[in-house]
């Protein structure tokens, strides 16, 4: 086994093309000596830091929150860099000869599709957004520290408040959890990777770009979203939130939802269809179980908000009237909270999964009532989470019976959580408790969750909710659950899996200091909010003397809570490079992610680990991690496109897979959405939108090209556990999962159409707005395309390739005519002066038909791909799954039209 002497500079990672790097050279490479240029860089950074700090200290409420945020970021980031500088005595500036290695390092992280790399990226990026969201929180708390403060203006405060909520929930908590899920779940279930690695990378880059887009809004005209994280209508209308900034913000949110949806499909297929041999559902570890529960909720909850965001952006860009029409506020409330309440559990569940993993390890006994926990969560929490959203609307005009129903279901959902908490506590009884840091954070999370949960039950009761709604009591409750339970649980996960991810141990003293200071500071911050139960939660300043002391204490707590996280960062940075090497299973855990060594490889089987996936984080080589020198340099014939195939021993082929497509597609979408936000405000809007679409189109073409030429191929495992879908392929499971999600999306939109119609005093009679004859013809054409797609499948099943191409071409022609007829009808309406803004009826029509037509367009593009592939002989009697998958999707699009046609043409 080779040993590392600990002298590799921190910026030199293990690149995607690590294969040809001579480690012996790396091991003996001298530490880069400091040159004048490096020192100049150091002093330049120091100067920036000083100037930024001085300017920040001198700001008052007239400065924009974006400017303050930027300066705060500069101060924090540069301070961190200087700390690292002093810790490691390493220069920031790279010497020329190191550029190649840095390039290799960058290529790995930009193009990787490996689940561990992506997990790491998720975690690091989520922590960056925690820094952004945390900075906003500190700005808000500073404003509220004293009565009548003018540190922030009302608008700046509202922006900070709204973006803090959105960033912390959607760009920090969920992604952090999914960083761990990405890294750990495939290991726990002994899968080689996620089912669709490129989609996994695409999910990550959509998340990363959407977050950057959201932060960018601070610097755009109109600024960031300022109507609260719940985006209540009509505050989100252009009347109250003008400018492109908010529109770009909503687009960013929509991209994030898209990322989550893709991720959900990927995870659900992986966990159902790619479990390794012997990993039956009874043997699935608790963390993976809780991720399964989370994914199921994500798959069904997020489409509702996706539909709502689509409509909101259409309202702002295309002047549709969904949320500005009568009843629009209630419509938004319903759609938002249908997603919003499950989101609380989506954020909470991974944390509970980690706790359920940690408790048995650190008590040396099995988790108490494991089956009861799983049954309670799956049969009660998951379904009930979709039936409790109305308790957020007790103060609206919901009918009393509906309020009562939601009150009962909300109180009901607390029962399974009682089971979970009692089971956690019973696990401690008679256990040999080892109070290491993961255990401390797990216990802390349980304690604060009990407080947060009990205060939540208050809010389930209509009379109490009337008292507490919109006060700081709710803020306190919410943060005890979201920060206390979720973040502390994820800190526990962080420390627990740190040795697995880095090959090194963290510093226990620093870690315990981090826990105790965090626990104390957390309670100093949030407990006073329970006392402030008469203070409205959405005011930017106050003059009531009685609120001053709790606010002051809370602000001091917030400073402390933010400050002590530096301990975490220092521990993290130090331990990754200088931490003591970890033994392979330091906690003596029994789950599969700890089964890794040179003999068995990462998969617990006779397979050599992929370099990129077995090395810890790629930031340095641990002496613990074995490096197998049998890896050969690659001959050109062994390189297949972007995947590197290295033959280690007979029957052990390992792949390293990377792709440039995911980052390009995500980047293109982000640029396009940025342009969409600018349309109507800036002449650059349309060019940006077109540029984004072009980038995306080229990258998608490249993706298809890679597939056509076999440039990206992940080997299928020979044997997997697939119950209960033993006869269903992973591709088919994937498309069905996507369809389930799409069903909810269309259900949300069609229900909104009906809602708008019922809220509108007069609605055009059938046939007056849309010609029934034209609708009938287009419907018959579309419905005839499904059997054509079916006949294409039938043809290839018989080995008839000509028949396949013919029927696909017929389907393509029918689909094209259908979309053409829809656009023809649009043109007729536009020609007669009618558009989306003309009436509620036309708003719903243009929006829904447009969304459906875009689904048809996706199908048409897929068909072109299939025809090209078929013409190249890409399908055979035995291998034609893509044709079947396409047929399912295409028929789904037809089925949706069966509902749309009567709604707009007949009823």
């Amino acid at each position: 086994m080779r040993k590392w002497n600990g002298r590799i500079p921190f910026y030199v990672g293990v690149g995607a093309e690590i294969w040809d790097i001579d480690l012996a050279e790396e091991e003996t490479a001298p530490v880069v000596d400091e040159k004048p240029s490096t020192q100049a860089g150091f002093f330049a950074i120091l100067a920036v830091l000083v100037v930024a700090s001085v300017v920040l200290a001198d700001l008052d409420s007239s400065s924009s929150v974006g400017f303050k945020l930027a300066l705060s970021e500069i101060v924090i980031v540069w301070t961190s860099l200087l700390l690292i500088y002093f810790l490691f005595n390493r220069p920031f500036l790279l010497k020329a000869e190191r550029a190649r290695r840095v390039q290799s390092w960058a290529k790995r992280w930009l193009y990787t599709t490996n689940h561990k790399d992506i997990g790491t990226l998720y975690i690091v990026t989520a922590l960056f957004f925690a820094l952004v969201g945390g900075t906003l929180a500190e700005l808000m708390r500073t404003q509220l520290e004293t009565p009548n403060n003018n540190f922030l203006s009302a608008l700046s405060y509202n922006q900070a408040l709204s973006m803090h909520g959105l960033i912390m929930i959607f760009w920090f908590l969920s992604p952090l959890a999914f960083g761990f899920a990405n890294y750990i779940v495939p290991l726990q279930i002994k899968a080689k990777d996620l089912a669709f690695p490129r989609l996994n990378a695409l999910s990550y880059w959509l998340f990363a770009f959407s977050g950057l887009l959201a932060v960018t809004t601070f610097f755009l005209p109109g600024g960031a979203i300022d109507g609260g994280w719940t985006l209540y209508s009509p505050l989100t209308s252009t009347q109250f939130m003008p400018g492109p900034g908010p529109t770009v913000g909503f687009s960013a949110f929509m991209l994030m939802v898209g990322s989550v949806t893709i991720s959900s499909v990927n995870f659900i297929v992986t966990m159902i269809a790619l479990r390794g041999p012997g990993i039956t559902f009874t043997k699935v570890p608790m963390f993976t179980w809780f991720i399964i529960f989370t994914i199921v909720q994500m798959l069904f909850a997020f489409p509702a908000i996706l539909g709502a965001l689509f409509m909101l952006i259409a309202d702002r860009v295309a002047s549709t009237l969904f949320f500005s029409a009568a009843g629009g506020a209630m419509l938004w409330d319903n759609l938002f909270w249908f997603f919003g309440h499950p989101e609380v559990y989506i954020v909470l569940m991974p944390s509970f999964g980690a706790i359920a993993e940690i408790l048995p390890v650190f008590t040396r006994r099995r988790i108490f009532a494991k089956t009861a926990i799983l049954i309670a969560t799956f049969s009660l929490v998951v379904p009930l989470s979709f039936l409790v959203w109305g308790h957020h609307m007790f103060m609206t005009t919901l009918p009393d019976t509906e309020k009562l129903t939601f009150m009962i279901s909300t109180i009901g959902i607390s029962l399974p959580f009682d089971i979970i908490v009692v089971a956690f506590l019973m696990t401690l009884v008679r256990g040999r408790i080892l109070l290491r840091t993961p255990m401390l954070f797990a216990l802390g999370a349980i304690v604060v969750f009990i407080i947060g949960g009990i205060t939540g039950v208050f809010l389930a009761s209509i009379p109490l909710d009337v008292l507490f709604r919109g006060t700081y009591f709710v803020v306190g409750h919410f943060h005890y659950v979201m920060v206390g339970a979720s973040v502390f649980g994820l800190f526990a996960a962080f420390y627990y899996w740190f040795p697995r991810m880095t090959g090194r141990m963290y510093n226990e003293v620093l870690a315990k200091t981090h826990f105790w200071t965090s626990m104390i500071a957390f309670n100093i911050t949030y407990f006073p909010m329970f006392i402030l139960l008469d203070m409205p939660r959405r005011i930017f300043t106050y003059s009531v003397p009685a609120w001053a002391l709790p606010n002051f204490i809370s602000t001091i707590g917030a400073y402390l809570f933010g400050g002590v996280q530096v301990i975490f960062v220092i521990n993290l940075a130090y331990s990754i490079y200088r931490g003591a090497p970890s033994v392979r299973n330091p906690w003596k855990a029994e789950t599969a992610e700890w089964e890794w060594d040179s003999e068995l490889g990462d998969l617990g089987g006779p397979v050599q680990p992929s370099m990129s996936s077995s090395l810890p984080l790629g930031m340095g080589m641990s002496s613990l991690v074995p490096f197998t020198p049998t890896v050969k340099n690659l001959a050109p014939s062994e390189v297949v496109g972007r995947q590197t195939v290295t033959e280690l021993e007979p029957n052990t082929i390992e792949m390293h897979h990377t792709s440039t497509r995911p980052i390009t597609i995500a980047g293109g979408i982000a640029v396009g959405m940025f342009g969409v936000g600018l349309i109507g405000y800036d002449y650059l809007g349309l060019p940006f939108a077109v540029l984004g679409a072009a980038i995306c189109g080229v990258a998608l073409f490249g993706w298809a090209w890679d597939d056509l030429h076999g440039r990206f191929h992940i080997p299928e495992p020979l044997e997997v556990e697939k119950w209960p879908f033993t006869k269903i392929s992973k591709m088919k499971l994937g498309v069905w999962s996507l369809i389930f999600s799409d069903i909810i999306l269309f259900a949300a939109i069609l229900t909104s159409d009906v809602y708008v119609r019922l809220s509108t005093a007069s609605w055009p009679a059938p046939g007056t707005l849309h010609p029934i004859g034209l609708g009938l013809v287009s419907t018959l054409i579309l419905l005839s395309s499904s059997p054509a797609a079916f006949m294409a499948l039938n043809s290839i099943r018989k080995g008839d390739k000509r028949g396949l191409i013919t029927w696909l071409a017929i389907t393509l022609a029918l689909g094209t005519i259908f979309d053409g007829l829809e656009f023809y009808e649009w043109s007729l309406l536009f020609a007669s002066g009618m558009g989306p803004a003309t009436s509620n009826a036309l708003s719903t029509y243009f929006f829904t038909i447009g969304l459906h037509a875009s689904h048809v367009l996706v199908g048409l593009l897929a068909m072109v791909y299939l025809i090209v592939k078929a013409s190249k002989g890409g399908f055979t009697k035995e291998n034609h799954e893509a044709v079947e998958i396409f047929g399912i999707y295409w028929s789904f699009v037809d089925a949706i039209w069966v509902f749309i046609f009567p709604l707009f043409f007949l009823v």
Partner: protein
Amino acid sequence: MARFTPVLVWLYVIIGTVLQVSAEEYLRPHSVSAADAIIFLLGVSEVTLIGAYFMHLKYEQRSLLIVALLPIVIIGALIAGILVSIVS
């Protein structure tokens, strides 16, 4: 699948659509609720057939069919919740 099944399903869907339009044209003047009910029921039956045959649910493992019902239940809750709130 029998050789003529997809053709029969296609014919049903086409005829069903024509019947929906007929209900709108000829039945609605006499009874709005009857026309709406027929249009709705025909639509549901068409979607069921498309799902069963063209989306192959009829030939898939039973477990997939059961899971496919899950979003329908959730949709039921969503539709009920939203539309009931309009009563107010």
